[in-house]
């Protein structure tokens, strides 16, 4: 495989991880919760697309729209039902709650759709390739990933800087109590950030399912890698997570090409090494615990 091809595919994979890491960062930024359920929330929403396509024969865009709405409602509901009632949660109890939601969703999805792999076809294909410049091959899938990632980034930039809700989210992240005094309903802001994160996760999951497979566990490894990418980027910065994702994707592709057997863990080994040198990721201030 030529170098350019590995580079482009790695970057596209990295953009997927970055997008999905964005879903993690979005929640961590506002509510300081590591959402271990992000992968399964996205998986469940992707199965909604699959279900609509396969059993009700909806057109693709209608199915996707339904899944978007479902994902937003699911995200807000998870925050409302499972996280809001927890009183003075510690880091560990938040981790356990989100892991519990993960088990719930995964159990329910495998109950409903079975543990086997599903046939899931999208309008974008991994097999169709273009050659815009001589010797530079890019697959339709990679192109779609780049375009969608760019659109979402632009949207988020606009959203965080120009809209009221985005400003409220940034305010809540900086100081929850001060934001409350300013008249921001922080609980609602959390619910919105969960809904947004869930939708971004769905986009990333649909893109990933095209490249890999669709079964109830298909988001497990991408989630771990996206989480690692987010940690690499510092868990707080949106450009950071994209760069982290790109690093993950490239590492995985190049190492995977060189040593296929060790593909799943090279990325994690690098993460641990990076964390040893910079304990709070590449692009963040040091993670400071309040004493």
């Amino acid at each position, binding site marked *: 495989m030529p170098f350019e091809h590995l580079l482009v595919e790695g970057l596209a994979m990295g953009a997927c991880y970055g997008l999905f890491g964005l879903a993690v960062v979005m929640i*961590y930024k506002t509510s300081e919760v*590591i959402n271990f359920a992000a992968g399964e929330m996205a998986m469940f929403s992707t199965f909604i697309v699959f279900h609509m396509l396969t059993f009700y024969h909806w057109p693709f865009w209608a199915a996707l729209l339904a899944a978007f709405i479902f994902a937003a409602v699911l995200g807000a509901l998870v925050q409302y039902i*499972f996280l809001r*009632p*927890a*009183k003075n*949660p*510690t*880091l*560990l*109890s938040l*981790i*356990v*709650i989100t*892991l*519990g*939601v*993960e*088990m*719930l*969703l*995964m*159990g*329910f999805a*495998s*109950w*409903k*759709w*079975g*543990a086997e792999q599903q046939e899931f076809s999208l309008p974008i294909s991994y097999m169709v390739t273009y050659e815009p410049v001589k010797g530079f091959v890019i697959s339709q899938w990679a192109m779609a990933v780049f375009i969608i990632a760019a659109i979402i980034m632009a949207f988020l930039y606009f959203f965080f800087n120009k809209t009221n809700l985005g400003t409220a989210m940034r305010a809540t992240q900086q100081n929850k109590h001060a934001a409350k005094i300013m008249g921001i309903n922080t609980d609602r802001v959390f619910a919105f950030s969960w809904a947004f994160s869930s939708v971004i996760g769905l986009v990333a999951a649909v893109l990933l399912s095209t490249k890999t497979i669709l079964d109830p566990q298909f988001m*497990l490894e991408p989630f*771990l890698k996206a*989480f*690692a990418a987010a*940690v690499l980027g510092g*868990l707080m910065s949106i450009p950071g997570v994209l760069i982290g994702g790109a690093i993950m994707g490239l590492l995985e592709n190049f190492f995977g090409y060189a040593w296929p*057997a*060790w593909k*799943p*863990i090279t990325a*994690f*080994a690098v*993460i*641990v090494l990076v*964390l*040893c040198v910079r*304990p*709070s*990721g590449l692009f963040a201030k040091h*993670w400071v*615990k309040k*004493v």
Partner: protein
Amino acid sequence: MDMKRAYYEDIELFKSGTILFWAIVLMVGLFTLPLFSTNYYLYLFNLIMVHVILAVGLNILVGSTGQISLGHAGFFAIGAYATVLLMTKLGIPFFPALILAAFIAAFFGFILGLPALRLEGPYLTIATLAFGLAIMHIIGHMEVFGGRSGLRAPDLNIGIAQLGWNLTLTTDLSKYYLILIITILMVLGAINILKTKVGRAFVAIRDSDIAAEVIGINLTIYKTLSFAVSAFYAGIAGGLFAFVLGFFDPITFNFFLSIYFLVMIVVGGLGSIMGSIAGAAFITYLMYALFKNISDIPYIGDFIVNISQRWLSITGIDNLSAIALGLVMVGIMIFEPMGFFGIWIRMKKYWKAWPF
């Protein structure tokens, strides 16, 4: 009643006659249990006790020292593989192999403890998680460890074959007594560790590592020691688990196993030995036994089968245990973050001053 007048009262094993009495009743019950139960339940009890050892060890790390680990399946796997390989490849007798394997696991715990010195919160979580996954993949990719196809445990010979003493345990009953004795020793060990200087240092680190450092606790030593002790327990548990199962492969020690371990101590109660025992028993029962035959569950069994036939798939009905576990995890965190131990404390407080 709870007032302590001397230091010895704080560190004695049986705080009152009542506790001593119930401890004796429990011991008698555990040692005579095989008289009343079938082979399947003995197997289940073996699994529970293995998980008790691990949960007690994990609680030293998470509950007492306050370091989160999502990679304990890795230490568990190291214990299992090291015990079996030391016995089959090098011919080491069972007990030395088990202890050696536990020390190997402890060494890996020490290694993992080194980055943990600098990492906190989410960063520590991802590092331990990566460790657990890495162990699983490394085992799966190396032929020495049996690769993907897994490993079969040898006969459980607790004698020393080289000297001609052979005592092979084949039934679940004999394994039950072996594991029971080891479990009791390990639990007593954990109770006592928490009463020594080391245990106090762990608790001080949990409450505030900066304050602990100020009063002269060497964070480097005690944090890595905590990882090592916890990994030692996981190693012993893994070595026994290998013989309870008889056959295992890398997928046995996946990411979810680490979650189950964490859930055991969280459900039981962080920082409490009795809590981790109760949590391990409850979660093991939930995972292995409760949903084995769903239609046999009283009252709701048929209802669940009907629902899954009508709306969901009947093949995926085993996933009910995952759903139940998820509900337990979320519920316990929302309603009783201290777990079973918290419920017990509340009950005790309520009845102590009961008429008032």
